[in-house]
């Protein structure tokens, strides 16, 4: 398509075709790689229709997913909202994979396609490739083939063992999905072969060093039996690697009643949960990074005269919709908008680097006035998650701009108290509290496997470490506990223990007699 000699525009009207898409992509790529110095996976852009977008939504955004009724439930829910016009579809969906897959909706105008390309194929893509959480915890190049394996495996299980058999296991596993991630230690990466090899070696060693003498030691006198029991307990805990925060992992490895295929199902659910865990911890940064990138790139394209004023207005219109932050008393208030907060913080970093006030120099001595906003941002994107990012970079200027205030809420009182507002005395407190609210691990209920006697009654004991007196919702707690019991096969009990005082706040069990 010959371009007008006078016009340098990438596209003229709102219709798109593959030629304009590709031309625009190249222009965006040049800016992203050369000017912003982004580092991305190769891109794959896929055009899909709105129905396909709805499909993708309901299967947690994966292009390949096994079948389960809960996705059908989500689907009718999303479809309903969409048909009623209560919720628009996302313009784009991006998958943390290598190559990075971006879905573009066919209904988008060309200006929107450009925006989405910049947002997802470069913003999100850069973040996926460089952020330490994604690097350490997910394997972008393997996820698609893993999902393919999972899908095939589960449908094979359904053929062999029946749909309902598979369904009950998946139901129980889904209930524990939040408790199915490793938060603090990296997931063990040993392949099953290596593991078997190691077990064999250990067994050999034990056989070689076996001495019958030790077995015939006289039983200890009564006084020490208590101590013995304690030692036994601590020994078996050590053998099972307890306490264990990843319930699905524990059940998969230790449950005595599961068939091998059932363990594999647990593993699949657990792997998916783990794959999404970094995304939940970096919502603000991820969206902020993508929004900042698309905003910078689109403005740059406009400055170069490569997109028209009309298209730019359209881009700005949807950009401002995305970063709109209603205040707390607005009926539309949904919580703090991660796009708005992330974008504002990154723009703020740019401002602090290039045009700092004296206040900024006090708060951010390392970066204020350095002029190196690109380097600062790229470093932040690589080495932070939401919690640490906010703790590090939320500036007083931004707190004032958002007019943030801190509210404390004690369930016992019938009022909420304003603890801090956006003034000199409140900045620190607000920043800390906001950062903490993005700490996923701290906000999820901390439930761990603490003890089980595999040789005795096999009663599985869970412990909920209660923080700030926040207990569990009882109905869903009991229902979930039944799911644990289903996977464990023997009775399960849960004790709520105050994290600070070690007081037992509540106890519940699936055993019929105990309550």
């Amino acid at each position, binding site marked *: 398509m010959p371009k007008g000699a006078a016009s340098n525009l990438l596209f003229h009207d709102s219709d798109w075709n593959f030629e304009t898409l*590709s031309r625009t992509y190249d222009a965006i790529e040049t800016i992203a790689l050369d000017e912003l110095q982004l580092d991305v996976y190769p*891109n*794959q852009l896929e055009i899909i229709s709105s129905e*396909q977008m709805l499909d993708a939504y309901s299967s947690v955004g994966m292009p390949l997913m096994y079948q389960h*009724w809960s996705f059908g439930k989500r689907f009718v829910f999303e479809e309903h909202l969409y*048909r009623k016009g209560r919720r628009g579809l996302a313009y784009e969906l991006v998958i943390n994979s290598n190559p990075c897959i971006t879905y573009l909706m066919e209904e988008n105008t060309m200006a929107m396609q450009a925006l989405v390309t910049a947002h997802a194929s470069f913003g999100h893509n850069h973040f996926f490739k460089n952020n330490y959480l994604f690097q350490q915890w997910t394997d972008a190049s393997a996820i698609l083939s893993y999902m393919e394996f999972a899908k095939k495996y589960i449908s094979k299980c359904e053929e062999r063992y029946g749909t309902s058999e598979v369904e009950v296991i998946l139901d129980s596993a889904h209930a524990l999905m939040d408790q199915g991630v490793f938060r603090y230690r990296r997931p063990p990466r040993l392949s099953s072969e290596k593991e078997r090899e190691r077990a064999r070696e250990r067994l050999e060693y034990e056989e070689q060093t076996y001495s019958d003498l030790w077995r015939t030691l006289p039983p200890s006198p009564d006084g020490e039996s208590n101590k013995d029991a304690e030692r036994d307990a601590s020994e078996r805990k050590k053998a099972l690697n307890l306490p264990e925060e990843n319930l699905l992992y524990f059940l998969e490895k230790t449950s005595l009643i599961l068939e091998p295929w059932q363990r594999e199902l647990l593993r699949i659910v657990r792997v998916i949960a783990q794959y999404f865990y970094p995304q939940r911890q970096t919502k603000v940064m991820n969206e902020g990074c993508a929004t900042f990138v698309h905003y910078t790139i689109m403005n740059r394209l406009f400055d170069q005269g490569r997109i028209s004023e009309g298209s730019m207005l359209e881009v700005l219109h949807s950009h401002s919709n995305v970063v709109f932050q209603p205040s707390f008393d607005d009926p539309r208030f949904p919580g703090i908008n991660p796009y708005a907060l992330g974008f504002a913080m990154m723009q703020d970093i740019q401002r602090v680097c290039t045009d700092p006030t004296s206040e900024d120099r006090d708060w951010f001595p390392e970066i204020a006035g350095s002029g190196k906003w690109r380097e600062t941002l790229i470093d932040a994107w690589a080495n932070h998650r939401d919690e640490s990012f906010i703790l590090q970079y939320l500036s007083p200027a931004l707190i004032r701009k958002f007019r943030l205030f801190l509210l404390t809420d004690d369930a016992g009182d019938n009022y909420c108290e304003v603890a801090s507002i956006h003034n000199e005395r409140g900045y620190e407190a607000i920043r800390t509290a906001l950062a903490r609210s993005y700490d996923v691990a701290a906000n999820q209920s901390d439930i761990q496997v603490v003890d089980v006697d595999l040789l005795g009654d096999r009663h599985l004991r869970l412990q909920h470490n209660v923080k700030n007196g926040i207990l569990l919702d009882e109905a869903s707690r009991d229902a979930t506990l039944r799911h644990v019991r289903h996977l464990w096969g023997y009775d399960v009990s849960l004790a709520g223990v105050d994290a600070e005082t070690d007081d037992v706040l509540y106890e519940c069990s699936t055993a019929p007699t105990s309550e």
Partner: protein
Amino acid sequence: MPNFIDRRLNPKDKSLGNRRRFLKRAREELKRTIKEQIKAGKIADVDAEHRVPMPERGVGEPSFQPSPTTGERQYVLPGNHEFSPGDRLPKPSARGGASGKGAGTGESEDDFQFVLSRDEVLDLFFEDLELPDMVKLNLKESVAFKRRRAGFAASGSPTNINVGRTMRNSYGRRIALRRPSRADVAAIADEIAKLEAESNTGGAHQKHIEALREELDKLERRRRRIAYVDPVDIRFNRFEPQPLPNASAVMFCLMDVSASMGEREKDLAKRFFVLLHLFLKRRYKRIDIVFIRHTDEAGEVDENTFFYSKQSGGTVVSTAIEEMLRIIEERYPAREWNIYAAQASDGENSAGDSDLCVSLLHRQVMRLCQYYAYVEIIDERETEIFGTTDNGTSLWRAYRTVDSEWSNFQMTRIARPSDIYPVFRKLFARQATVQLRTERR
């Protein structure tokens, strides 16, 4: 360079399987909801999509969730206008917390409705209803046959030869009779050729060649005698004609439109007919409807006229039955059609005609019909009086005798829209034992 892939042509409805699983799980609850909706008087809408609320039971996805009514929390909120530290705000409601997070994101999934397609609705709606006598009618009514594979035969037409079977038999026979293979023959021929090529012409050598020639000759004769494929090997695919159940039905709607039938009565009758029509539509590939209205004379009319136009005159029910018989004879021979009839009336009939109706039914109609339903529409006040007794209008009393004799005749009374569905279910409920019509000759 990016890799562009156009996925728009990929198959849609990837979620269909998931949706089906979800509906299956929620089946009981959805069924109840649909029934209630239909009872509430929207029968004309049955044949459409339905909105149903999210079922509550069976589709919960529990997980460990923090309870909103306990503990201390901190919220950071944007948009402070006038607060200073220490201000106290009353909590908005019992839901605890000043709408921190989650207020908007969790958009309760309970109070939304989703749409079931027409087919899904009908499936739920007509579950465990069955057409009486439908399949059990004798097979002579079937007019179509379909050829179905039925094993193998030793005779048949050459087009039906089953090559696999035939060759298997041939192979087995060849092994059993030790038919020399081509390779055996070729081996001996080769050896002869080799020996002949040698210049050695000793007596023993010649003898050896002779012996080999003889052997070769024997083999070849044997090969000729034992056929490669013998007629006894040949097998043919066998087909059996299988009768196909009759797949077309006609439904006669008979209604009294004399002055005594008001709007209410007609509306109730219409609902009943609509249900019956829908139900038959689920079961038959092809279904015709014939509308016959009558006063003191009967006529076939189109649907609109049937339900909406007014006519006055006396009431002679037998005219409608006669008209129906005429139409059956003319267009719907009972051998080829499954015939269903539904009659709606307020039960009034001119004196003496009821007996004529009964004799028509006895002598002709009931033999032809798959099923005959009589629905009497009565006043709401009359339900208490007539609800369960055998007393009633002249037509009702006359029809009692038919009811007692023919199992494919059903009669019932309707006073309210809400009666229709239960009555319908009663009429078509799956019966444990169904008597064959043909036994009653």
